[in-house]
């Protein structure tokens, strides 16, 4: 692995070299300073300086998104400190924070402009449905650790809040064209003002993604076309009031391979291909009012609709959401925020031979109330935050999710913080009321009746919420205006995690044939803990070069309270498919006034799954991304983006069903961006 060494050495040498050259220079760098002082809203839903927040938070800025050359949200999240992002196949992603990664990683809350986009069906996120134009995104706030007190259920191991740009009222637009080995895309956006008080912004984005390869190197049937458009109006109602009306709509047509069980002789599963149609949209209104410089009232409502049709599963879901939130200063040195919300979500599911639900139409009502106070003790340089959320829903009991956070600034260069919080992951519709026929087993030759077997996952309407009690400690240090360190550590205690209990086999008629049905009953018997740490070092070496190093580590220890022959397989499924170690080095260089170079070298440890069907593993290794950008004229720029450059093709993730596992190919793309 000599080349890795060269690369690492060369990367670290450049800045030293230039630093030595310019040791007399004043490196006060505005961009970097701003970066360290970005006003963020996610942690306490109040503006708070990033470096003083009592939570592990990272903000992906517009500039960072641009310099990664990301064409999708998971690509923009890739290499964000502490975030585990893996591409499953041509279009699907596994994204998680602090372990438990999977196609439907369910301990992460993802929101776009405050609208939750996890689906109550699986408690996961359909990342392939998101086809935003990346230049429309202002920033992505990533919180590692629980955020349930303010954001509610599913904000267990982390929160990702994607914030789109508001209309500025200037007449402007962009046109972007991408041609690449794995994707092609065309996107456009315009913005302008309609009147003094009304501004709008609109975008459309179309992408074509090439197929991935199966593990033996053959092309899979999973290419797709993705189209999404959106529109927003920002209205200044008064000096102290505003209204945003916003909507998006999408239609994606893709192909997908499935491993399909055969319920008739010879009972062998085969791989079939089919169309997947993803259709959806949302419309929302957000009204806000400033009642004084430090108080604000916000009311938000949105309606979200999606349709997901594939070979095994057809679902239509409608969700209506309304939230109110008020923050103010009741007394000196106190910032109080309180609010509540109600969500109604209805899904209509049409199953298949492999999947069925207890009732096709299900309604879910969720309500919540929360209150949180941040108390400043300026004399001691302390800030104490405490609050709780009470949340109830149709599928589980009422949950209380409190947190307490303390930050101490012993000097203006150091922040120490700690937090204790509780968060829950509420049962998904699949867990509480569905039956999945996962595998047909051929009859034994010794069985005179020649009855085949069937492994069946059986939902449990008594399934309870998964629970987390989290203990976090963090430290930030800014020794100079150009160098910063951010270290977070955590100890998470989980209880009532999803477990599989094997029931007694019964003879049953399923899909017209007789089977020995072996039920795998869902239960809440896993418990355990995880611990880990995340480090980030950012160094603005010179005005033209910046280095960012990040490293994260996690170890997950789980056990099954009702140990059975499936226990170790399930524990391996939830714990071992995430990265234990992850490290990256990102060098950003301005080679001249018009040429930028971004070089990212990263390491990922092994992923594995010891299952009864075989042991799967992906070896550890290095890889690298590269972007070169050239501002050709004031309006026109070009960039070349390379991803996974050190491997012609490599598997990135192990899915729950191995038939869809894929090799992700090295990709090179050229982008032209024109703006006016």
């Amino acid at each position, binding site marked *: 692995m000599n*080349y890795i060494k*060269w*690369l690492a050495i*060369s990367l670290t*040498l*450049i800045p030293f070299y*230039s630093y030595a*050259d*310019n040791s007399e*220079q*004043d490196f*006060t760098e*505005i961009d970097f*300073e*701003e970066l360290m*002082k970005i*006003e963020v809203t996610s942690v306490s839903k109040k*503006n708070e*300086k990033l470096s003083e927040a009592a939570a592990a938070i990272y903000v992906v800025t517009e500039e960072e998104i641009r310099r990664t050359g990301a064409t999708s949200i998971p690509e923009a999240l890739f290499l964000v400190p502490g975030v585990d992002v893996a591409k499953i196949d041509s279009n699907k992603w596994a994204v998680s924070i602090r372990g438990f990664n999977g196609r439907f990683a369910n301990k992460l809350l993802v929101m776009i402009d405050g609208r939750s986009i996890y689906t109550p069906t699986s408690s996961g996120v359909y990342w392939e449905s998101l086809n935003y134009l990346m230049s429309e995104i202002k920033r992505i706030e990533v919180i590692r650790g629980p955020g349930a007190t303010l954001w509610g259920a599913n904000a267990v191991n982390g929160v990702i809040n994607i914030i789109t740009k*508001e209309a*500025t*009222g*200037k007449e402007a637009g962009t046109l972007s064209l991408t041609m690449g080995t794995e994707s092609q895309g065309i996107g456009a956006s315009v913005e302008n*003002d309609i009147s003094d008080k009304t501004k709008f912004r609109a975008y459309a984005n179309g992408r074509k993604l090439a197929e991935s390869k199966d593990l033996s190197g053959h092309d899979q049937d999973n290419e797709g076309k993705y189209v999404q458009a959106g529109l927003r109006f*920002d209205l*200044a109602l008064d*000096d*102290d009031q*505003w209204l945003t009306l916003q909507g998006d709509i999408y239609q994606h047509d893709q192909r997908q391979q499935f491993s399909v069980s055969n319920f008739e002789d010879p009972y062998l599963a085969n791989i079939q291909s089919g169309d997947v149609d993803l259709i959806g949209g949302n419309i929302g209104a957000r009204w*806000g009012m*400033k009642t*004084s*410089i*430090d108080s604000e009232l916000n009311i938000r409502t949105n309606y979200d609709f999606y349709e997901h049709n594939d070979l095994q599963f057809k679902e239509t879901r409608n969700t209506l959401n309304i939230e109110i939130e008020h923050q103010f200063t009741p007394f000196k040195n106190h910032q109080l925020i309180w609010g509540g919300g109600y969500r109604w979500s209805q899904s209509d599911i049409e199953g298949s031979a492999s999947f069925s639900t207890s009732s096709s139409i299900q309604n879910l009502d969720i309500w919540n109330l929360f209150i949180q106070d941040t108390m400043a003790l300026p004399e001691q340089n302390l800030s104490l935050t405490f609050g709780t959320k009470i949340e109830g829903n149709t599928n589980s009991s009422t949950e209380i999710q409190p947190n307490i956070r303390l930050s101490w600034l012993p000097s203006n260069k150091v922040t120490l913080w700690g937090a204790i919080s509780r968060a829950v992951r509420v049962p998904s519709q699949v867990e509480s009321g569905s039956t999945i026929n996962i595998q047909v087993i051929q009859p034994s030759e010794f069985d005179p009746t020649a009855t085949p077997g069937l492994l069946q996952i059986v939902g449990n309407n008594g399934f309870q919420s998964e629970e987390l009690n989290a203990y976090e400690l963090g430290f930030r240090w800014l020794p100079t205006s150009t160098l910063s360190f951010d270290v977070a550590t955590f100890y998470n205690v989980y209880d009532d995690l999803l477990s599989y209990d094997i029931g007694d086999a019964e003879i049953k008629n399923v899909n017209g044939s007789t089977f020995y049905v072996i039920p795998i009953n869902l239960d809440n018997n896993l418990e355990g803990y995880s611990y880990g740490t995340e480090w980030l070092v950012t160094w603005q070496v*010179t*005005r*033209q*070069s910046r280095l960012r190093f990040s490293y994260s580590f996690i170890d997950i220890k789980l056990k099954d309270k009702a140990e059975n022959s499936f226990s170790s397989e399930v524990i391996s499924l939830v714990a071992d498919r995430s990265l234990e170690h992850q490290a990256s080095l990102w060098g950003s*260089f*301005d*080679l*001249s006034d018009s040429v930028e*170079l971004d*070089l990212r070298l990263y390491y990922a440890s092994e992923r594995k799954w010891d299952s009864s069907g075989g042991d799967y593993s992906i070896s550890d290794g290095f890889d*690298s991304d*590269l972007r*070169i950008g050239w501002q050709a004229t004031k309006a026109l720029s070009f960039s070349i983006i*390379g991803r996974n*450059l*050190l*491997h*012609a*093709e490599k598997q990135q993730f192990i899915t729950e069903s191995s038939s869809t596992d894929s090799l992700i190919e*090295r990709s090179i793309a050229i982008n032209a961006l024109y703006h006016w």
Partner: protein
Amino acid sequence: MMNNLSIKYYLTFVLLMMNIIRPVFSEDNSPSAVKVAYIYNIAKFTRWPESTWKDANAPFVLCSYGEDSVSKALIILENKKIDKHPITVVNVEKDQDFQYCHALYISTDDSRLYRYLLSQVDQQKVLTITDESSFFDSGGFVNLVRENKRLRFQISNQQLSETKLILSSKLLKLSILVD
């Protein structure tokens, strides 16, 4: 499987790029220090109505909102003079703080807060200076901008026609007038 040939090409390319890196350094000053100097000079070339101060030595209140490097660096203006008035720098935290401002420096990336802050001062009598604001269209008197790596400032024509402040001709000549 790794493709050794392309890795070699890639590495050669990367190393080539590294060799190209010869950062060109201009003698830059810290932008915030430059901005503070701009704010001071803009105030010096502005005349407030006679009735503004009762006493010739009464302080000039420079208000500031935003916790960026500029608002921190503003402190170096403390006790420097605008005419005979010594400058007092005030970080506004409450609505009541605004009434004393003679000039208000605003730095925020929140357009709502921006409009609210502007609504709190009498723009005819208070010199508002915003920092590279993308909301300058929606209000404000003077906006610091960067053009070709140099700092410049915009003056709103509309505010200019309504203001009771007198901006020197020198100031107007250097500025970029915008509608």
